[in-house]
């Protein structure tokens, strides 16, 4: 992440890029069978394999024009929502250290054994367990699901397993409501502060933290869409990708250090960086502009949610806690455990272009595929964080540089490679670089 700041340390330009090696995987997929590619896709990321597995599977099905049985769709929906439940809980752990225990100046350490945080941490862990257990039942495995297949699912679940999922979802609903209320309370407490502490520095908190005007893109409140749908909610013709060279700044040099910045201070003076050259993903655009994807995009599109900024984004994510469980209970209710879960006929593919979007916890995960004679000819993944890179970059403008990571965490970024944060002064010299990983 490269930031150009003014004399007051306020960000004028944000540049957040990734060096995630996604393109290599897409080339690797060419020539493989459609069954192999979702397995490969689920390994590009350690945090959201379920979303990539489902999106890749459905992109293949879209290309070969294979409709799956309704009970297979129900199982995939349950798996999807279980993944979302687990992921929101994981994100709570990510952002809690930024927030304060209300009425105190103590920041929340989610790993402390002290109350009241301990109770919250246990609730988060239980929600994660519930999400993973339901995901394991529906998807065959809670990390890299192995029950999904081209044409549906390998097997339906038993009536006993359905009851187990239902019981867990009901338990999760009570916990999720309590967790949502807690998180919204501490987020509102943070929002009301005049300043916050970052590594011992008192940093003014702008009321417009994380604001941007880039617009939202969401394809479904819970699941996604595909080119097989009667009324698809994503249009591949409105998407285009530009080169990072056209978007990011060129070579810079760090000219200031801030040793108090957690954890371990910023990067040493003199370090050279070049986001223009280091970025290895394109900049995806929808209707010619970067867009925000994720919980707020879904709530804005399907519920008219309208709170801007980082706090609004985090609150939208918390509101998806109970939404995902109510929908999950409906999907479990609808599941016929005696129903077939594999399509009667699975075509080999005629080379048609197909796409599928999956509304992953972090946002729209769009996969595009072309399959002919049971071989993949083309495969592309537009993952949520790739969509959000340029939007988050815009959202950084106007914030103190010390709060750049707070804004970034609002997007729940999933970047599997190292990301660097750099601060520039008025002469475009880099004044700080933070190694996030």
């Amino acid at each position, binding site marked *: 992440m490269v930031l150009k700041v003014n004399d007051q340390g306020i960000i004028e330009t944000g540049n957040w890029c990734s*060096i995630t090696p996604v393109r290599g995987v897409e080339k*690797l997929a060419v020539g493989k069978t459609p069954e192999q590619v979702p397995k490969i896709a689920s*390994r590009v990321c350690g945090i959201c394999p379920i979303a990539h597995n489902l999106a890749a599977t459905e992109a293949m099905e879209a290309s070969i024009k294979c409709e799956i049985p309704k009970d297979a769709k129900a199982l995939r929906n349950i798996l999807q929502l279980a993944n979302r439940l687990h992921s929101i809980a994981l994100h709570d752990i990510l952002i809690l250290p930024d927030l304060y225990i209300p009425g105190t100046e103590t920041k929340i350490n989610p790993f402390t054994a002290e109350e009241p945080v301990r109770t919250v941490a246990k609730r988060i862990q239980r929600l994660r367990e519930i999400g993973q257990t339901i995901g394991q039942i529906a998807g065959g495995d809670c*990390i890299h699901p192995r029950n999904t297949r081209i044409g549906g699912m390998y097997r339906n679940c038993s009536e006993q397993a359905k009851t187990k999922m239902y019981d867990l979802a009901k338990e999760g609903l009570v916990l999720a409501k309590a967790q949502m209320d807690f998180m919204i309370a501490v987020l509102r407490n943070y929002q009301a502060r005049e300043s916050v502490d970052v590594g011992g520095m008192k940093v003014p908190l702008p009321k417009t933290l994380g604001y941007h005007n880039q617009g939202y893109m969401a394809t479904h409140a819970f699941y996604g869409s595909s080119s097989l749908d009667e009324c698809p909610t994503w249009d591949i013709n409105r998407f285009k990708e530009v080169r990072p060279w056209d978007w990011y700044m060129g070579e810079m040099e760090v000219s200031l250090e801030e040793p108090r910045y957690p954890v371990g201070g910023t990067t040493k003076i003199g370090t050279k960086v070049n986001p223009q050259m280091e970025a290895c993903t394109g900049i995806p655009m929808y209707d010619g502009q970067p867009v925000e994807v994720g919980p707020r995009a879904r709530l804005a599109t399907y519920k008219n949610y309208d709170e801007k900024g980082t706090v609004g984004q985090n609150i939208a994510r918390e509101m998806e806690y109970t939404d995902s469980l109510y929908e999950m209970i409906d999907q479990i209710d609808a599941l016929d455990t005696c129903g077939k879960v594999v399509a009667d006929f699975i075509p080999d593919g005629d080379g048609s272009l197909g796409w599928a979007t999956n509304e992953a916890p972090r946002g729209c995960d769009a996969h595009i595929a072309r399959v002919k004679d049971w071989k993949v000819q083309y495969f592309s993944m537009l993952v949520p964080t790739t969509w959000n890179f340029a939007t988050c970059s815009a959202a950084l403008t106007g914030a103190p540089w010390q709060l750049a990571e707070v804004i970034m965490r609002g997007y729940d970024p999933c970047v599997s490679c190292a990301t660097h944060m750099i601060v520039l002064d008025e002469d475009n010299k880099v004044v700080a670089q933070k190694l996030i990983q």
Partner: protein
Amino acid sequence: MMQSEIVIVGCGNPLFGDDGFGPAVIEEMEKLILPDNVTIQDGGAGAPHFIFNFLDPEVTKKLVVVDISDFNAKPGSISKISGDTLKPGAYIDPHSWDGVDQLCRISAKIDTTVVMCQPAKAIKKGDADVEIGLSEDVKNAIPKAIQVILETIGVDYGTTINLQKEGSQRGAAETCGHQER
């Protein structure tokens, strides 16, 4: 409950050559009939984020982690170490969890063993060369690794008989409460 008394997790990413050893071992172990108190899990690339939810110190007595490690041996060599001997890493943030750090914390409460295989070439963090498939030496080490794992958890699956020294490991399964096969 998801938690079992014995948890075996294979870590690594099959997209990066020999790093896929852990998941490959788990794939082979899925063909075995194991006692009900044993859970095997393909932790894949996300093990540090996900796998600790499978562990409850009140239920889980034994954890076996299967991974590759560069310990200057011949490619395909298998070794195992106790979790007590691991050195903690640095906590950065919840999206950059270092699994070793957490293993150190948990090994005080759960008997932890790491079964390691020497890869054909050392893989460093940040390597981006995508290459599917294990090297021949590492692929051939899978049966040996499974033998070591079964010996570690005290399951006599036939293949482990010759490995077990007199009086060793058979009691381990009893202390973990599983029924001897």
